[in-house]
């Protein structure tokens, strides 16, 4: 291997490895959070809750854990390693709200916490609402046409 080739090879590896590592971390931690969710879900089903309620309560449990871990400062450390692994599950939505709420406390509870907890969660709610309503209208038109 010539020197130039070797340099290219090293640069190539150096550029790629963080992406590969990031993706493996995201995959495994994202999967792990879903497993924790499934454990909650199975536990609540075992205790006799309906499937829909058990699923909602499993999400709420993950949201609670996220808010708690965000508060004690552990979530940031996990998120730094996990990347999209903590972002994509419901934990990302919960963390967006709780971390903003904690960070903007000094600006007051109305215009600080109350307003700014939606800095990231707000757009999520806006666009999910719009796409949901759009779907509802299209679905309604379909049911009218085809019964």
């Amino acid at each position, binding site marked *: 291997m010539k020197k130039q080739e070797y340099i290219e090879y090293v640069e190539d590896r150096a550029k790629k490895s963080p992406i590969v590592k990031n993706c493996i971390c995201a995959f495994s931690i994202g999967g792990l959070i879903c497993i924790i969710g499934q454990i909650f879900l199975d536990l609540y089903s075992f205790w006799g809750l309906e499937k829909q309620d058990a699923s909602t309560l499993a999400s709420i449990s993950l949201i609670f854990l996220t808010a708690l871990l965000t508060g004690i400062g552990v979530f940031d450390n996990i998120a730094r390693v996990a990347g999209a692994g903590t972002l994509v599950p419901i934990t990302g939505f919960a963390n967006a709200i709780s971390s903003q709420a904690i960070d903007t*406390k000094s600006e007051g509870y109305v215009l600080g916490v109350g307003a700014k907890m939606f800095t990231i969660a707000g757009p999520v709610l806006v666009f999910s609402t719009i796409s949901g309503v759009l779907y509802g209208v299209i679905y309604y038109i379909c049911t009218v046409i085809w019964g």
Partner: protein
Amino acid sequence: MEIALKYLIVFLVGGTFSFIAQVVIDKTKVTPARVLVTYVCVGVFLSAIGVYTPLKEFANAGASVPLTGFGSLIAEGVRRAVDERGLIGALTGVFSLTSGGIAAAIVFGFLASLIFSSKPKR
């Protein structure tokens, strides 16, 4: 054995959703906020075309815990409400199944702000 397989599927499907987002973030420098918005909208769309409900039956929490699952709950709530009440259901159904999660995130976020103070960023 069946339980092990079920949990393996949860892990693989849930992991794949995160994996795709990580590739998108690393390759395109899209901000995390946009990823969240996109995922929820994709969830609504996949549920609308009838793909997501079978996926949820197959992968359980692997499909319901990622934010696409949140989107699919919105679509499901809307569909049920339109079936029951007609066009107004398009508005009333949006949060019928998701309000539990949203309210929890707001309440726990608020409680966290009462109890905890922000740590200095490292």
